């Protein structure tokens, strides 16, 4: 299924030169480019919609957005998950205004059309007004998305029937994802609620910050770090043993010292917990990944999910126009953690990266002001600098993906915008280049990888 707009074939490659390392500022505010992003990126990508733990029982549902399209995510009686447009096929009104809950029916407020949790039309108010032949119930349910998939607890959906499998979409990035999703038996869950806030900024600024911008932390978050850390600023990073890794627009920047993000969380009991399970983590995921986990790190899944492994904030940047997004944040923990450790993690996340967190509150206004200032009619034609570390690409014998040495780098950001450009340019998924060619093959489980990646 295709959702392209008709009559627009602009050459998006003129908005960036990633070999040179610059971006055109118009991609952060132009309304036409934004509309095209909704069609070409959000209507065609696999998008995160829920964690399985949010809807454990039959009839559990939550409402969210895929791009700007409102959707319902609902657990079915057979245990499967369906994702459907939150819009009545009669006049289009939203059929569910709750954030979450448990139900047997979604009933539209306008004319009382009722749907089951699979989206099937079951009846309506004053049903007799429809004569035989007026309406075919089967074809007037809530439109289901093309595909739903789950990777180790994270549920994704896509409107695009031609999209590759979720495993292929995540590809070698699963090697990194498993550090947060599978570092302990039992997997993960979301706990507490969802915090939603609105920022007057372009959605890409949030994603690119988490995908690779370790660089901002020492300056932007100086006040937060000093207050959490007895007046000390961020320690200098180890440029030799820290990296950027990019896979098809997904990206993870990280150190290998194993403790930096856990220190920033500010909860010693959580540090103790991870130190206790670290030997097991090494058996499970290999030594390299057990050293990466907990270090100063941040990551994004293309196009609009980010998280901090170790600090355990998990978030999604939902586009709401070229110059606005809604930020949804959750706390992700290992299911088998003792309750008191889960409680410590929740408090730590709230105190650091909630909207009132000592780190988070420095970020939003930077992104908002980048967005509004870049919009100036003269300003928008000036290029932005994305060249940091452009010569530091390396081949690494353990780390998959396009790897750059040194955590202070724009490499993952360049990888993200390269994928953005690929999706804005290519009509067919099959024609998009792999960046890089998959190295792990079609393994179902990165834990069991033979040879060098199991190190």
């Amino acid at each position, binding site marked *: 299924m295709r959702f392209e707009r008709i009559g627009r074939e602009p050459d998006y490659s003129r908005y960036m030169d990633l070999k040179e390392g610059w971006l055109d500022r118009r991609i952060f505010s132009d309304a036409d480019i934004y509309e095209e992003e909704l069609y070409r990126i959000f209507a065609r990508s696999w998008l995160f919609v829920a964690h399985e733990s949010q809807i454990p029982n039959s009839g559990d549902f939550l409402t969210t957005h895929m791009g700007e399209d409102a959707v319902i995510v609902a657990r079915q009686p057979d245990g499967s998950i369906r994702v459907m447009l939150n819009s009545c096929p009669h006049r289009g009104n939203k059929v569910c205004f709750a954030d979450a809950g448990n139900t047997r029916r979604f009933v539209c407020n306008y004319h009382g059309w009722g749907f089951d949790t699979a989206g099937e039309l079951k009846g309506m108010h004053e049903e007799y007004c429809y004569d035989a032949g007026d309406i075919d119930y089967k074809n007037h349910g809530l439109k289901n998305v093309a595909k739903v998939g789950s990777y180790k607890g994270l549920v994704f959906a896509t409107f695009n029937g031609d999209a590759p499998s979720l495993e292929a979409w995540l590809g070698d990035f699963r090697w990194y994802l498993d550090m947060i999703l599978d570092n302990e038996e039992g997997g993960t869950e979301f706990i*507490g609620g969802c915090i939603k806030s*609105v920022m*007057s900024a372009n959605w890409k600024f949030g994603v690119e910050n988490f995908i690779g911008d370790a660089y901002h932390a020492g300056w932007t978050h100086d006040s937060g770090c000093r207050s959490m850390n007895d007046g000390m600023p961020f320690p200098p990073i180890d440029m030799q043993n820290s990296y950027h890794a990019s896979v098809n627009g997904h990206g993870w920047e990280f150190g290998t010292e194993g403790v930096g993000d856990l220190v920033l969380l500010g909860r010693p009991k959580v540090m103790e917990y991870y130190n206790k399970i670290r030997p097991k983590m090494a058996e499970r995921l290999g030594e390299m990944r057990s050293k990466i986990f907990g270090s100063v790190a941040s990551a994004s899944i293309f196009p609009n999910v980010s998280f901090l492994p170790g600090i355990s904030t998990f978030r999604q940047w939902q586009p709401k126009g070229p110059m606005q997004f809604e930020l949804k944040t959750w706390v992700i923990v290992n299911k088998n953690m003792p309750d008191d450790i889960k409680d410590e993690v929740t408090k730590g996340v709230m105190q650091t990266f909630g909207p009132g967190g000592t780190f988070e509150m420095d970020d939003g*206004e930077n992104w908002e002001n980048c967005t509004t200032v870049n919009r100036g009619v003269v300003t928008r034609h000036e290029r932005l600098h994305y060249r940091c570390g452009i010569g530091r690409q390396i081949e690494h014998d353990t780390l998959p993906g396009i790897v750059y040495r040194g955590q202070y780098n724009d490499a993952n950001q360049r990888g993200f915008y390269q994928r953005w450009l690929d999706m804005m340019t290519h009509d067919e998924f099959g024609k998009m280049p792999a960046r890089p060619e998959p190295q792990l093959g079609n393994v179902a489980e990165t834990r069991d990888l033979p040879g060098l990646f199991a190190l």
Partner: protein
Amino acid sequence: MLDRPLSPPPVEVIVAVTQALHREARLLDNEDFEGWLAMLGEDIGYLLELKSRRFRADRSKPLPLGPGVIFNEDLGRLRLRIDRLKSGYVWAEDPPNFIRRAVSNVEVLATRAENEVQVHSVLVMHRNRIDGTTRLLTAGRTDLWRSEGSAWLLAAREIVLDHAVLPDSNLNAFF
């Protein structure tokens, strides 16, 4: 549960506590954070949460750790936030935001403890940011105030924001 209604607190107490609420708002508006800290009890609990939109018929239990908690602080954590604000490294608030708090709907109720009162109030916060945008936030507050010597100290505060989506990029002001 209370087995009999308590008599209302004496007028002097109502006046003193109401004045304390107004004083608190003024100190915070003026960024006199040390002055504000001096009004807090040693054991203060300071909780702020966002609401979640649920159907009226939804009888499911609240989430165990509470939905959307933004602040869940003790005195040490509040002190840490204030140290951050005073550190001189908070670039996002230099020049400072203009914040004005209006306190209203104050209701002072007796409790079983003679030196404590429960206080309901409404806070409206106007926040004019350095980029010129203005945000308006409203919240309901339920406090416990305790008389210690000649002063009334804030012993606990639960803040419920009247927003399911925080209409701003952060929340760096005290309610």
